[in-house]
């Protein structure tokens, strides 16, 4: 199977310029006669669903981003051109939100990825108990973020939280609540998300680890690779696609979701954990600034897409467009 990855008739219907001995064109199958391929037919329902559910809101978002929408005393939309975008660049809170997001997303991604790789490699290595440990490790992602936020708020409360108590035992946070200081609050929300979502990265990477053929390791051992070098030069490169998918998935959700931050810090103290998702939520759903919110939403979408592209291109070397 060297030269034949191409298996479809996408390259077109034969021209049949030469008339053969006994032409028998009657039985052209229905699929062949369709203007699109069988694969496209299968893909079409998904594409249509996604198009309807994503392109329509996108079009609305784009059009609203050039409007000012007000509801009182009556609903009206006024075309304001790029005013929303200009306002955005002048809005200190918008930029602060991006700064907080950079820390939050950067911190969470690196921590979760590091831990995720470590845990999955350990799970892959461990000789007994893999099942038990895997079952335990994946639990947090099964709990709704709303409840996770409340749970952590409960654990971090300065007067009765278990973690506050444990911290106090080692002399930390006695006069300073964990969520009351910008640095520790940011660290706390990052840890919360790490607690909940590292399992997803573990799952994706563990699966990939298990599919790495054993002979590759054996070959590496013959070449004298041990422990870390083997991991560095054999395992890690093979994990790249899985890492890219994990990063892609986590980065888009870190940008969009904010429930835990909303519940625990509300964006504070001093706006230091007001991540872009939360900022956008306030603009769009709370204050119903539909025009401005749409503009900010488009910026968020653009940044997410660029990030996604970066992950896909640099790590995976293309959108999984293998061979």
């Amino acid at each position, binding site marked *: 199977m060297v030269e034949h990855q191409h298996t479809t008739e996408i390259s077109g219907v034969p021209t049949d310029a030469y008339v053969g001995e006994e032409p028998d064109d009657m039985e052209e199958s229905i699929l062949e006669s369709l203007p699109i391929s069988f694969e496209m037919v299968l893909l079409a329902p*998904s594409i249509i669903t996604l198009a309807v559910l994503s392109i329509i809101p996108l079009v609305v*978002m784009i059009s609203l981003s050039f409007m000012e929408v007000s509801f009182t005393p009556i609903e009206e939309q006024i075309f304001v051109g790029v005013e929303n975008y200009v306002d955005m660049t002048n809005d200190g809170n918008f930029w602060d939100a991006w700064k907080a997001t950079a820390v939050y997303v950067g911190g969470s991604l690196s921590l979760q990825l590091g831990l995720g790789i470590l845990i999955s490699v350990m799970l892959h290595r461990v000789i007994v108990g893999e099942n038990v440990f895997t079952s335990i490790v994946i639990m947090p992602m099964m709990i709704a973020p709303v409840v996770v936020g409340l749970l952590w708020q409960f654990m971090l409360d300065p007067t009765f939280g278990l973690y506050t108590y444990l911290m106090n035992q080692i002399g930390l946070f006695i006069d300073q609540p964990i969520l009351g200081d910008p640095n520790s609050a940011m660290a706390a929300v990052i840890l919360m998300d790490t607690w909940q979502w590292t399992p997803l990265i573990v799952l994706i990477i563990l699966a990939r680890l298990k599919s790495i053929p054993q002979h590759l390791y054996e070959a590496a051992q013959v070449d004298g690779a041990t422990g870390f070098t083997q991991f560095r030069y054999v395992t890690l490169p093979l994990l790249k696609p899985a890492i890219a998918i994990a990063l892609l998935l986590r980065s888009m959700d870190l940008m969009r979701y904010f429930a835990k931050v909303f519940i625990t810090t509300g964006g504070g103290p001093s706006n230091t954990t007001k991540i872009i998702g939360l900022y956008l939520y306030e603009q769009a759903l709370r204050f119903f600034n539909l025009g401005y919110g749409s503009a900010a939403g488009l910026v968020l979408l653009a940044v997410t897409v660029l990030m996604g592209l970066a992950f896909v291109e640099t790590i995976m070397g293309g*959108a999984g467009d293998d061979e």
Partner: protein
Amino acid sequence: MSKANQSTALPKSVRRYGPLAVLGLVAVWTLVPLFWMFLSSLKIRRSMFEFPPTIIFEPTLRYYQDMFLGANPVTPFLTNSVIVALGTAVLSVGLGTIGGYGLSRLDLRGKKPLAFWIISTRMAPIVVVVIPLFYIYNALNLLNTHIGLIIAHTTFNLPFAIWLMRSFFDEVPVALEEAALIDGATKWQAFRKVSLPLVLPGMGATAIIAIVFSWNDFIFALIFTNNATQTMPVAASQLVTQTGTLWGQVMATGVVILLPMVTFGVIVKRYLVSGLTMGAVKQ
């Protein structure tokens, strides 16, 4: 057998117990909040706030009683969550499987951008798109319906499902389908009878991930449902009342949300990892 082979330069005892030690720490880090959640759900309100925190106390089941037998039982919300999560899983995995197959086998110059477009539809900020969707839903009478919420959850599950399924189908040798075609199968039969059975574990894994995301969604569930159709996360959020968070009920809700998923997760975990693996298929 494979694990033992991966010898390292480290001493044998470290090699053997090192991973266990790391995993032990991870398990502690994971379980402490969950254990605390469980304990707190059995405490009367006052002892929940004792500082230093207590581990020995007289347990109460009142929050659970309240949840299931009280004036406002959560059972309907739990049912809603299950219906929506399963519905979403069926829809996303169904569409995602045929779509992922199509994407995997598609031979097209624009395949890469198409694949990226598909995943990028998952990137739109929900808090913004929920508003136009609300108008559409209103017009289509989809508000406050299970199917409406299922469709909404499909928007963020389908792209990922397509990507996952595509990666599984990529692992299935095309020659298998060709063999089937030669054996007399139609393209659909080759897909249905040969490739599809081979990615069943993958479908299981995709379904679980779809269920997790659907189970956890808050914003869509909040905006698109009323009391009759709301899901557990929305019900849980109501425990933050104007006059205080009902911590006992929150903790009990956490346990109730977690339990079915853990049970389910343990049952299908085999699929979850091996499903995401698919190594066995490739020859």
